[in-house]
């Protein structure tokens, strides 16, 4: 079972207290975008086997969204961070690199 820390209220809890919200850092397609851009935004996913960034909501706590960095192969959680950003912060990237030296943000 995953243990996550909500960066909004600071509570650390089991995954049942949270709701997964899919891949993080997607670029929202604007209304005048092409069909392909909408496909990429709505359906196309990285779905990596390894380091992944995703959205979570503290559904049975403060109710707010945040982001988590997690490994989909080992279920290791590298850290959580605010949803008000378009890329994982340096602190999170360093935490991932400490555990996965070959990893880099692409």
């Amino acid at each position, binding site marked *: *079972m995953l243990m996550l820390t909500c960066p909004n209220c600071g509570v650390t809890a089991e*995954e049942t207290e949270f709701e*997964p919200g899919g*891949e993080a850092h997607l670029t929202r397609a604007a209304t005048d975008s092409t069909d392909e851009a909408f496909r990429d935004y709505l359906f196309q*996913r990285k*779905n*990596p*086997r390894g380091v992944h960034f995703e959205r979570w909501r503290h559904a049975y706590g403060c109710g707010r969204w945040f982001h988590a960095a997690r490994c*989909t192969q*080992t279920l290791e959680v590298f850290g959580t961070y605010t949803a008000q950003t378009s890329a994982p912060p340096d602190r999170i990237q360093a935490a991932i690199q400490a555990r996965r030296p070959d990893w880099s943000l692409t």
Partner: protein
Amino acid sequence: MKRYSAFAIAREAARHHTGWERAWASPAPKDRYEVIVVGAGGHGLATAYYLAKNHGIRNVAVLEKGWMGGGNTGRNTTIIRSNYLQDESAAIFEKSRSLYETLSQKLNYNIMFSPRGVLMLAQTEHELRAWKRTAHANRLAGIKSEFVSPRRIKDIVKIIETKGPRYPVLGGLWQPRGGTARHDAVAWGYARAASDLGVDIIQQCEVTGVDRDASGVTGVQTTKGAIKCAKLCIVVAGSSGVLAEMAGFRLPVESVALQALVSEPIKPVMDCVVMANTVHGYMSQSDKGELVIGGGADGYNNYTQRGSFQHIEETVRALIETFPLISRLKMLRQWGGIVDMTGDRSPIIGKTPVPGMFVNCGWGTGGFKAIPGSGWATAEMVADGAPRALAAPFSLDRFVEGRMIDESVAAAVAH
């Protein structure tokens, strides 16, 4: 290939079983094949078999990183049905179900197809309306299924509790020719028949890269060396995203864990399959007497082939209300498989952005029932270079065009 028959058993019994031959060959990979299928699960092996059988393409290799049928083919709850709402789904799943009817004879391998009937419970008003609608759609599509009342359900499944209180059984969708089959045997039967037709099945051979030039795919890099090919078809379910990344494109799928469990064996208590979609509980009784129970899928990406504990608890808790008899059963084993979910919960069979490379994936939580039809349609596509009627609606283009085959809404859950 020596045929399996009652005479063969008598003959071998008379000579102390010294004459059985290996069911399939395990050759070293050749330098080049016309078609390489990645993934020796049911879908991949069926694709290779129908390429050889229906289209005369026998220079085919099936590459498997682990062992044959060791992924979702060996991890599902073996449910076979075709009572889907949308016409496109109904066509391919009914093709599949009808192929299952005679598959043992066609493959000369007993896959133990058991058309014991599949009952899908309606436990909310929403499901009640949805199943009535599906029953009408099935009738128009020529699929034998019917809406049944709670009284009839009690007659079909004696051990069911229809009164609730939390999830009363309000009705159900009954497909009498749905059922189960021996899942490993489906993979083994296709493997044996394909091997007999000249298909090379190469296990413990992981694909590590896709080779391509300007004109399209040229081969694959594997743990057993580079292998060239004219056409490449990836049929790897949960690992589809990983293979797509090797070839340089993305797919509209996400890999999540789906769980199942079996109880200790007991005397026969139910002779059909019951699916309770609202509470994510799917149950049937195996020939050994174990109750085979399927649960719900996790909500987040996962490649670990094990799921979250709370989903087992939720599944069992809900099933105990519907089947009070199972409350004191011990559960023997629990396992997980990695399923590839699409946005509309319908599969993908189609060409990829790389010329000569095809994909069959996205079967999500319901791929076992589709193995024969999926292999049939995928073989057509690989042989012709373009999908025929059965597979055409399931192309990748639908995610650009917005032409969804929405079984997600039709079933209200992944299924």
